[in-house]
């Protein structure tokens, strides 16, 4: 048994390093950029008028539509539309690119709601305090509100990241030889499906455990200010 496990390990790890981890990392990075942008569009109420305010309203409409559509459809269907569907209107994407686009847009939609609610949960009083000292809105966001929101957003965003790592297995359906697909191929050759799928499950668990440890480390660091009784 150990022989089978050990002999399959290099191909699985190769697939993990080549596809699973890059897919998760790149998609999460793009997803967070989208999420922060969308969250700010929904959260901020800039004091502008005329054409600019119409533009802002339009932007908000687009943001709302985007979040709605990606949260109300299955990720697998989204991947199929991007990879198998778009070519019929002339947009042909390589599998890895298609996967990154799908995962990023999906993560961005969920993440934006998480980030927006964290921004809202920081007290309005903090804005008043910053404004009275002369901070501008971007300065207040960056120096006062976001650091406090970060602590709130860390656990739910970690969940989303961990979810994404596992969801990369769906990329196997759009021809990417990521870890799960490789385990399927090996199982088809050595007729050991139980062993192979348990092994790949263990590798996913290993990755996610590293992320949990990282989460705890970041949580401790970012909440060093919550000592004492609070007030």
């Amino acid at each position, binding site marked *: 048994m150990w022989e089978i496990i050990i002999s399959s390990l290099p191909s699985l790890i190769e697939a993990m390093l080549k596809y699973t981890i890059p897919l998760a990392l790149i998609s999460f990075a793009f997803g967070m950029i989208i999420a922060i942008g969308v969250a700010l569009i929904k959260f901020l109420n800039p004091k502008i008028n005329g054409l600019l305010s119409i533009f802002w309203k339009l932007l908000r409409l687009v943001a709302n539509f985007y979040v709605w559509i990606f949260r109300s459809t299955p990720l697998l269907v989204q991947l199929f539309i991007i990879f198998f569907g778009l070519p019929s209107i002339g947009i042909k994407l390589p599998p890895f690119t298609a996967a990154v686009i799908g995962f990023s847009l999906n993560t961005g939609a969920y993440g934006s709601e998480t980030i927006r609610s964290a921004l809202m949960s920081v007290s309005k*009083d903090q804005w*008043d*305090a910053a*404004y009275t000292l002369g901070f501008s809105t971007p300065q207040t966001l960056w*120096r006062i509100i976001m650091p406090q929101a970060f602590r709130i957003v860390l656990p739910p965003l970690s969940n989303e990241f961990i979810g994404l790592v596992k969801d990369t297995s769906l990329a196997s359906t759009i021809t990417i030889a990521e870890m799960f697909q490789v385990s399927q191929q090996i199982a088809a050759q050595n007729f050991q499906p139980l062993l192979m799928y348990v092994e790949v499950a263990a590798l996913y668990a290993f990755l996610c455990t590293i992320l949990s440890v990282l989460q705890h480390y970041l949580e401790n660091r970012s909440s060093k*200010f*919550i000592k*004492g009784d609070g*007030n």
Partner: protein
Amino acid sequence: MLKIKDIKKSFGKKEVLKGISTIFPEKKTTVIVGPSGSGKTTLLRSLDLLVKPDFGIIEFDDLKINFSEPFTNKTANALRDKTSMVFQNWNLFPNLTILQNITEAPIYVQKVNKTTANKQAHELLTEVGLDEYADAYPSELSGGQQQRISICRALAVKPEYILLDEPTSALDPEMETQVLEMLERLSDQGQSMIMVTHNMQFAKNAADKILFIENGKADFDGTKDEFFSTSSPRVKEFLHGISLN
């Protein structure tokens, strides 16, 4: 000198400020009193433009905003720089140390060099006997200590006036005394202050001028001596009510 003319403000249908005019003398302490809900907080927040009045004029020397006319952000910011507010619940930044709470605005808004800003912050902290807490976080301090820090934070941006909205009403009596002593000292040093308070002892000790707000209007505007000896039945009734508490 800070002056306001006919300031009006409504929230929805409710008119909270019904045309208030007064002057806030420089290097003096103006105390604003009045029943709760009368519009004191709204008036104070208007001075710092945390609330934007619907009507009226705020001016400081040759800076002037008439709220019936358009005005630039530049004018608004210049006017806001003249005042800095201290809140009822102090509102320190929980993610920053005590020192950073005080130096954040000088460094990042006013572009004061960091060494200078730190030095000034330590001086302010030393003056109130809290320098040992420079590297602590707000949550490690008592309410009275946090409020004194927030006064230091307001002073650090060197405003012409500090505005205080019931700075001691969330504190127990012992801590209230510490904060009021600090404020009386500032008042003696000639710091221009505008303070909303229910503490008549502070008004008697430190006020130069008293503004009594009732129902969105200034019902009394005069010196402390005039206030405490006024024949106005409404002021008398208010003072009587307060002394019973």
